[in-house]
């Protein structure tokens, strides 16, 4: 630790001499969850691309600091590693949601520096292939007339992003008390889709990438994509919610934050590195294969975007009573 601080000090000293003096060294990416999840994927894929593009020396180490839905890693970065220059942490909409709902006790988004996004996984709402429901307004109408007849399954806990997406859609569709929407939480999108196929629930809310395998096989019917425009590729035949008159966008963005006292040079370096990864052909390919849609925000723009999404989630959470 002392050594790292020393290194950091040397870098700060060096960087005061020249404007572009930050040299990455022993870079590390924290995935705030166990291996296998979205954050782990973000760290590993971006780390690999950074390496392939020679933006970092050697390999980028990925550490999994699991717990508290990312809260353990957040607290660790803020509390113990606040001035490291070689560290970035994977984040997503889930991070913003938890920050908004105060689920990281004592932590706020201002304690870290937000670097940039590497893409977004847009939300989808789907029903089983033999469901009588064909459009999003039909589903919402059913919820309005008889809320108990529709159970919506998703991979996040109540109050999590999969839940909030449906609630935003319902509120835009004119459902007066969104708390009436029946949401059933499962352990991950895969389990939720399985229960849709099994007929236990009537609708599914999740990310486009979670639904991809089942869309290809024709087992589920996507009734709305929560994106500003139609997605490319396999999802191009599915209408957006906006087309159907319900103006809702639900993007599960993926990106990074860095320690709050990272030097400006190092911050600029990372913003630049992440933009380069985003612009590379290698990354375009990874995005296409994993159902990630474009979301190109870096530096200050990204900081503002995160702030805005946290504010809107806070409002909604208050409305449904998750946050007092």
């Amino acid at each position, binding site marked *: 630790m002392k050594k790292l601080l020393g290194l950091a000090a040397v870098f700060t000293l060096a960087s005061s001499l020249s404007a572009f003096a930050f040299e990455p060294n022993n870079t590390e990416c924290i995935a705030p969850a166990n291996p296998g999840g979205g954050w782990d*994927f973000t760290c590993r894929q971006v780390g690999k691309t950074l390496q392939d593009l020679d933006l970092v020396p050697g390999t980028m180490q990925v550490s999994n600091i699991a*717990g508290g*839905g990312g809260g*353990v890693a957040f607290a660790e970065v803020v509390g113990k590693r606040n001035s490291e220059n070689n560290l970035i942490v994977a984040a997503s909409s889930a991070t913003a949601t938890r920050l908004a709902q105060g689920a990281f006790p004592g932590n706020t988004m201002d304690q870290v520096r937000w670097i940039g996004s590497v893409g977004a996984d847009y939300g989808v709402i789907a029903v089983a292939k033999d469901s009588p429901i064909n459009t999003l307004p039909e589903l919402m109408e059913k919820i309005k007339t008889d809320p108990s007849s529709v159970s919506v399954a998703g991979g996040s*806990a109540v109050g999590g992003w999969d839940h909030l997406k449906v609630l935003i859609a319902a509120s835009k569709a004119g459902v007066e008390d969104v708390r009436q929407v029946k949401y059933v939480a499962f352990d991950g999108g895969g389990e939720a*889709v399985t229960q849709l196929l099994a007929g236990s629930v009537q609708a599914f809310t999740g990310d486009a990438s979670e639904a991809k*395998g089942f869309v*290809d*096989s024709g087992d589920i019917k996507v009734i709305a994509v929560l994106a500003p425009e139609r997605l490319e590729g396999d999802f191009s035949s599915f209408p957006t919610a906006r087309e159907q008159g319900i103006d809702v966008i639900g993007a599960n963005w993926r990106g990074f934050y860095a320690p709050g006292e990272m030097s400006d040079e190092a911050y600029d370096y990372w913003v630049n590195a992440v933009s380069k990864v985003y612009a590379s052909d290698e990354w375009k390919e990874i995005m296409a294969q994993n159902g990630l849609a474009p979301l190109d925000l870096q530096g200050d723009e990204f900081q503002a975007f995160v702030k805005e999404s946290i504010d809107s989630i806070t409002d909604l959470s208050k409305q449904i009573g998750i946050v007092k």
Partner: protein
Amino acid sequence: MDTLASLADGFAVALTWQNLMLALIGCFLGTIIGALPGLGPSNGVAILIPLAFTLGLPATPALILLTSVYYGAMYGGRISSILLNIPGDEPALMTTLDGHPMAKAGKAGEALAISGLASFIGAFFATWGLVFLAPQLVKVALLFGPAEYFALFVLAFATLGGIASRNQAKAALAAVIGLGIATIGVDGQTGVPRFSFGEVHLYDGIDFLVAIVGLFALSEVFIFLEHRAGSGADDKVVKVGRIVPPWKMVRETLPAMGRSTIFGFIAGVLPGAGASLGSFISYTFEKRISDRKGTFGKGDPRGVAAPEAGNNSAAGGALVPMLALGVPGSGTTAVLLAMLLALNITPGPLLFQQNPDVVWGLIAALFIGNIMLLAMNLPLVSLFVRVLLIPTRYLMPAVAMISFVGIYGISGSTFDLVVMVIFGVMGWVLRKLDVPLVPIILGVLLGDQMEKNLRRAMTIHDGDWTMLFNSWLAIGLWTFAIVGFVLPLIVGRYFRPKIADEAIAEGSDPD
């Protein structure tokens, strides 16, 4: 016959020198990882993912390496269960019940060999099940809604009495402690943290690996410290038993292995049930079916064969929903799934059509790995048993060290180490009180899932309890649960009159 032709193609993919070497390395590392307390198959696979990336392996070899580690760890978990009474990972928990008493009775060699064979049989037939039944089995997984899952976990709890050999009340107490621990953390159905006292580390609940290592490994160390460490008095001559089990023992345990393979496979296929439930159900059913003389829990070879066949078979079964639905059936398959995604392969209903070379290469690799593991494990038994010859005063510090390093390695959090020590002290106290430890872990593992599924069923059906009995499958499971719970209470009195005999077990561990 198409299936067999595809499988032959798979072997053609898998049988290259490079792949065989990878399988060998994977099997070896997996066995070691499985045997170390705290490191289980999911960590093992996760640790090796960067290796696979760094080597720049294409999809099939990478999967071969990782699944070899997976199967290897399932084999390896039994070793420390039997020799040290410390489960190497959670599916190996049930193996401690009869495996360790066998080792104490000087039959460690036989126990390791029989469990190795059982592991092979479980994994071998489960892989065949994967070959022929994967598409059909997916339909079985789809029969299980939240209500059915709840009934399944009730069934598991109803047979819990089967694992406590002496005091049922203490086993029930232990299970309740486990259920209590399972409620710690954010409640998914309301998003509200429970019993977390504002401590962010507790939001995800207690990791059961931390609980297992604390309860079993550290409490063992404490017991050792208590009994005068370093006096050398405990360095009695240990008998390790025969390395090759007598044919009679193999023949006796074969039916147990067969039955357990089926139970384990079904448990593995159901997402969310997994290998732990597989080995648990295998053990309790085997005890119900064949424990005529009350020898289970005191070193019955069938009590070693059943859970090992069950958990290895479940490991194969868990690959069915992972490959065919893209839904992981266990922690390890979740990691494998992520690996597949990282390699640009989308698991799901179309995987078998879109990437046949990957799927069949993988299945062929499972067969190869399994045979390698058997070939590796049987001769190594003589090496493993030497662990017993190490004086406890050297062994126990090593156990303590591995526990700390292992747990820190998983989460990188000192908080988990504190929790582990608390569990260690708790385990020590409970052992003093003669409370069995296994039901605690089962309470944590199964209780969490049981609650989640009950809550889901209630949400879906607006709190209508009668909907829990809404399908024939659910009713069937409930019937089994009730019969399994009530029958031993009535029948047991007549068929097992010699409860008094169990006092002989004085001095042996309650778990």
